[in-house]
């Protein structure tokens, strides 16, 4: 078995042209990950630039309304650039800089990872090119503008379904054509080894903080941690330090779109099969001949036909559960949290919240659910308005 395996999943299914680049990246990461200087620099960026630690907020009105378990929200939406994506990007950009790279490329779906990468590139004085499905550039026009404002070039991808998977493919193609000065700043716990490990380690700050913050507030571990899963970076970040705590249930929420029994879904665990794509072995939505399925979700950030290999393994072993959440449930949760707590969540995060709304009333009042609120929802207001039949214009 090759490197970077999580059970049978993971690996390095990459063109030969990129093999030395991923080997070089792995070597650099191994050299820096326990380097006190590197970690001090990253911690300073997390605190002073990204605004960490993010708050763990007790959602009292939600808890009271649901009448069951206490609901806490891990406020990744309060980070600089408005989502958890900045954690990974600051780590990778710092690593790329140490490796002497001067140019970052990235894929983006909703635009959160693209904005975060453009932000880090501005901060580190690096060149930046972001690949974004043309369909998504329309859905998330504001984020396209932000990336350009930050100095990045945004390349609309017109191939395939013109969404996140095509943006990943195009970023990989670009990396094969220019590898010596360029780091591919992958945005999720996916792709070839070492990306799933690197991204997880940089996102693991989320569960490290949850553990400490909840210990301070409640003196104990949570009963349930819930996060949304596309590729799965915020979820693995929220799960990681609880994987060895068997009393903590870990639940990933996939985008069911219009439902797992319709073709308009992006729920990989619910509807996918084992496959090899984008550098990794994992579960993918695909047809009988292995053609990758065009997937759908109202949330551009979850609109991906695969799932990171570590999640696939956590599913295989039963350590984590994965549940599908529909557009309708996510939009309801988006509106619910806005009204109940005055917090507008990202549509992605609203998938996690939607499941918490179902689960909390079935639990007792001493129990605790932590929902990873991975991003803020400003970017989604137009999409939700459209979903409700209202067209917004500036």
């Amino acid at each position, binding site marked *: 078995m090759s490197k970077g395996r999580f059970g049978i999943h993971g690996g390095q*299914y990459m063109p030969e042209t990129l093999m030395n680049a991923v080997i070089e990246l792995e070597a650099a990461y191994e050299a820096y990950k326990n380097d006190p200087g590197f970690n001090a620099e990253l911690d300073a960026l997390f605190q002073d630039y990204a605004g960490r630690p993010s708050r763990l907020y007790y959602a009292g009105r939600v808890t009271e309304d649901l009448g069951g378990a206490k609901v806490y929200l891990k406020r990744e939406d309060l980070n600089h650039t408005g989502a958890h994506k900045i954690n990974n990007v600051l780590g990778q950009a710092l690593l790329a800089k140490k490796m002497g790279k001067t140019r970052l490329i990235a894929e983006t779906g909703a635009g959160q990872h693209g904005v975060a990468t453009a932000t880090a590139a501005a901060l580190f004085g690096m060149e930046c090119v972001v690949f974004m499905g043309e369909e998504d550039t329309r859905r998330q026009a504001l984020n396209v503008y932000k990336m350009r404002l930050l100095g990045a070039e945004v390349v609309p991808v017109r191939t395939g379904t013109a969404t996140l998977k095509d943006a990943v493919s195009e970023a990989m*193609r670009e990396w094969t054509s220019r*590898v010596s000065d360029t780091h591919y700043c992958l945005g999720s716990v996916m792709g070839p080894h070492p990306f799933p490990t690197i991204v997880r380690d940089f996102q693991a700050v989320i569960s490290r903080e949850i553990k400490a913050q909840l210990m301070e507030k409640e003196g104990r571990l949570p009963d349930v941690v819930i996060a949304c899963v596309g590729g799965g970076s915020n979820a693995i970040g929220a799960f990681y330090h609880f994987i060895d705590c068997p009393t903590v249930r870990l639940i990933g929420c996939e985008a069911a779109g219009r439902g797992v029994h319709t073709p308009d879904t992006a729920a990989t665990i619910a509807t996918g099969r084992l496959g090899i794509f984008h550098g990794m072995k994992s579960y993918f939505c695909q047809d009988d001949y292995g*053609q990758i399925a065009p997937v759908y979700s109202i949330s551009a950030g979850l609109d991906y036909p695969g799932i990171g290999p570590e999640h696939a393994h956590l599913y295989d072993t039963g350590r984590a559960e994965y549940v599908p959440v529909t557009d309708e449930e996510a939009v309801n949760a988006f509106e619910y949290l806005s009204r109940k707590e005055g917090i507008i969540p990202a549509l992605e995060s609203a998938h996690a919240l939607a499941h918490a709304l179902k689960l909390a009333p079935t639990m007792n009042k001493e129990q605790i659910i932590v929902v990873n609120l991975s991003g803020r929802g400003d970017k989604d207001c137009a999409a939700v308005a459209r979903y409700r039949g209202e067209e917004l214009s500036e």
Partner: protein
Amino acid sequence: MSRIYEAFTHGKAFIPFITCGDPDLHTTAEAVQAMSEAGADLIELGIPFSDPTAEGPVIQAANVRALSGGATTDKIFDMVCELRETVTVPMVFMTYANVVFSYGTERFVSRAAEIGMDGLILPDVPFEEKAEFVSDKLDLISLIAPTSGERIAAIAREARGFVYCVSSLGVTGIRGAITTDIGGMVSLVRAANPGIPCAVGFGISTPEQAAAMARHADGVIVGSAIVKRMGQYGRGAVPYVREYVAEMKAALR
């Protein structure tokens, strides 16, 4: 020694690539027949994939045309099975890992060998991952790239059939100039495995480029220039493809 070896016994080999089912499998079969008659020494048959990450725009578009035309792995196997009644030139499949894996790797390899295929090229399966795709029935072709450096020796030592030398960084597609030191790559392969033929691909489209590459290597692979003609002329492309293959083979003589 597989039949692929024969492809390199008539001087420098010309190796055309075509995407199966672009625009339909009947046209593919005619084109393969024509290429074989026009002097192709080995033919690469692409099984279309929804997300061909190693391909440039020309072959990406052919994949889309083939899939929307209804090409599937099984229909391609059937086409090859019929073709083998008349076409004897060595042939290899070129596709992506998931097409093979999802069919069942063992089942895919057995069926491909049974219908007379000689090898398999998987651009998203590097040396490190090849174990699960290697078999005695079908040569798994190894690729080396301009970035491979010290990896070349290990790859070449375990290579089967031929070594596919990727001429340039980036994806498949027609290029004005190829600047890589192909001679250097080929001599590293030869030092590690003196018997294995080397064929150069990616970016080659003109007879002049082919002749220049053939000075260093044992064969030349051309994809996008042929697929471009398929895209341009569709069902009427066969005569143009035949003429092009004859011209390219002549440049290698």
